């Protein structure tokens, strides 16, 4: 701003001050302008401060954390070596993911941190490259044309009693999921079918890693009652 402009501005402001001197502050534009600046500044600073706190809490954990039983809101990628369940926590009053004993995943339960991180990287990239969130929701965000994927890894449909292992001819959850992702159009479950997105076997494996890791994230109890009700409901 040029010097002259500032001077003129100050003069105008002074003139305004004179004329509003006897009037209430509540009808003074400059009072509200300052209020707007202070309120916005204060809210922004609070948000930035909370962002620092939250960022520390949502940093991805490590393999050492998992081995030492350190609970992280977003566990490390080697969580794929463990069994994950979703259980009611009496203290917190909602369900939380529980990381349990070792579990075989694509034939192994000793995926190294680098291997797991690499597969998760492909899976997360794949989830974006295939526009997953424009049909599905992930953490409840996305489109509503297909089921939420937040806890898809824990969905009874993919478990030993579910239909999907038999349908895809696979013996494990992860293999059934990967097979479905590579050839979704060959396994129609409903009139609304997932299209063939050209997912390769390596990408499918990455996506299953992504989904298993996703199910281990502490989402404050969302979704509620996941997978609790199985079988018949209302006689159906």
């Amino acid at each position: 701003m040029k010097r002259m402009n500032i001077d003129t501005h100050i003069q105008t402001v002074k003139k305004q001050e004179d004329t509003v001197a006897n009037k209430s502050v509540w009808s003074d534009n400059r009072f509200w302008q300052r209020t707007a600046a202070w309120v916005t500044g204060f809210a922004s600073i609070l948000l930035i401060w909370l962002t620092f706190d939250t960022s520390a809490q949502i940093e991805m954990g490590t393999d050492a954390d998992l081995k030492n039983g350190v609970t992280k809101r977003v566990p490390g990628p080697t969580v794929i070596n463990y069994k994950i369940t979703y259980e009611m926590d009496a203290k917190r009053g909602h369900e939380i993911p529980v990381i349990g004993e070792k579990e075989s995943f694509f034939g192994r339960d000793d995926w190294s941190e680098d291997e797991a991180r690499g597969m998760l990287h492909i899976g997360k990239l794949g989830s974006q490259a295939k526009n997953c969130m424009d049909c599905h929701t992930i953490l409840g965000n996305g489109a509503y044309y297909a089921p939420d994927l937040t806890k898809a890894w824990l969905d009874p449909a993919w478990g030993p009693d579910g239909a999907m292992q038999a349908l895809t001819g696979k013996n494990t959850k992860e293999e059934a999921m990967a097979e479905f992702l590579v050839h979704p159009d060959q396994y129609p479950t409903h009139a609304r079918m997932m299209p063939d997105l050209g997912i390769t076997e390596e990408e499918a494996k990455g996506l299953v890693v992504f989904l298993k890791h996703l199910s281990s994230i502490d989402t404050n109890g969302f979704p509620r009652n996941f997978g609790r009700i199985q079988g018949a409901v209302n006689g159906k």
Partner: protein
Amino acid sequence: MASNHLTSESKQLATWYFTFAATLFGAQLLFGLVAAIQYVMPGFLYGILDFSIARILHINALVVWMVFAMFGSVYWLLPDETGIETIGIKVGKLLFWVFAAAIVVVVLVYLFVQVGPADETTIWFITEGREYIEAPRWADWGIVVVALGFVANLFLTGMKGKQSGIVTVLMADMIAFAGLYLAGMFFTDNITVDQYWWWWVIHLWVEATWEVFVGAIAAYGLITMIGAHRKVVEMWLWIEVSMLFGSGILGMGHHYFWIGTPEYWWEIGALFSALEPLPLVAMFIHVLYDWGKTQGAQEERGDDTSVINNKPAFTWFVLNAFGNFLGAGIWGFFHTLPQVNLYTHGTQFTSAHGHLAFFGAYATILVGMMYIAVQGTNGIKVMKNTKASIWAVSMITGGVMGMTVALTIAGYVQVLVSRAQMGATWAGYFDGQSGAWFAQGMDWRLIMGVVTFLGFIMLAKDLLTTGKNPVHER
């Protein structure tokens, strides 16, 4: 537009932005119809233009036409507010073509390439796959350059010319609006971190900076269309800015309930987002109050004619005041508390809110600005409603309200069956989707979508022809 009355190049450029925006508005509705048909007939265009692609185009066209119309609105009002021609208008014109060309390329890639392999090249050249901001990274940088040019024009003009409260608010608001886009331009393997920053773009746009933009545009509209008193209007504007940013910035907490972020966001999000409707009530009262005040003053002088010099635009502005409050305020508040949101998050309920809020808060006022541009371009003193303008506003509003009600009912089924009863599993999801109320909701949404689209055709016809209509006072 050969025979136009515009002497300002800035306003000329604004009409380009409005024209492109209106075209994209049509595209948005068209792809929305494709997606709506797919809910009713899942086989429709399966494997050719799948739901995901139709939806990307539906929501990206929405965001982009609004951004175009917002840029257009600023270029339109700048000469009026600052009293000078916009500085750097040549660069502005060049950037318009860069922006428009980039959008066309992005759309063609969405349509014909659709998806890519799971590597960085897809993120850079095909899609980023992040809802609303799917545009590939190269386009992100293009958008940053265009936005910087736009903000530079606004700042240089705003600092050299007269400094009105409206321009001051717009300067602060637009730099935040442009800057926030940067928060959506990185890749991380951590989905929680991804979503955390993604909301900085989406939420701080539509529930903070865009709302403040609407406040500024409404202020400009009240001054130009009904001759409202600038001091009163600008005082309200500052109050609105305080309330919008005071509630909206921390209201972001309502997106942090379930994405892996700490539990304290429940309280912060619940409190501040519950306050978010308040400024929208204030804005509604403000528009009606100023209208009544200026009309009353005129009647006191013994003149019974309307104070409004642009009937169709003012209709859309009043609709904005009400629609913002209803769509963003009421429909937003319905499901903003964590106790409710636990069950409604990620259902058609959100979609119902999204439709009415984007329409009520943004589409309305931007269409209003298009009418103001038609008035200015054709040198009309008092612009009147035509049959087409009345049909357009009635059909579009009725259509969007109809879609909202239909989606709300479908959302209830989803909340009760898929969520509360069945616990959100795959089986639960499809149980909800096959419910009779849900299916009928989707049928009605499609019907109302068609009504909206027909209304858009009337709107396009009116915007293109009303300027030459002899009914207006010149």
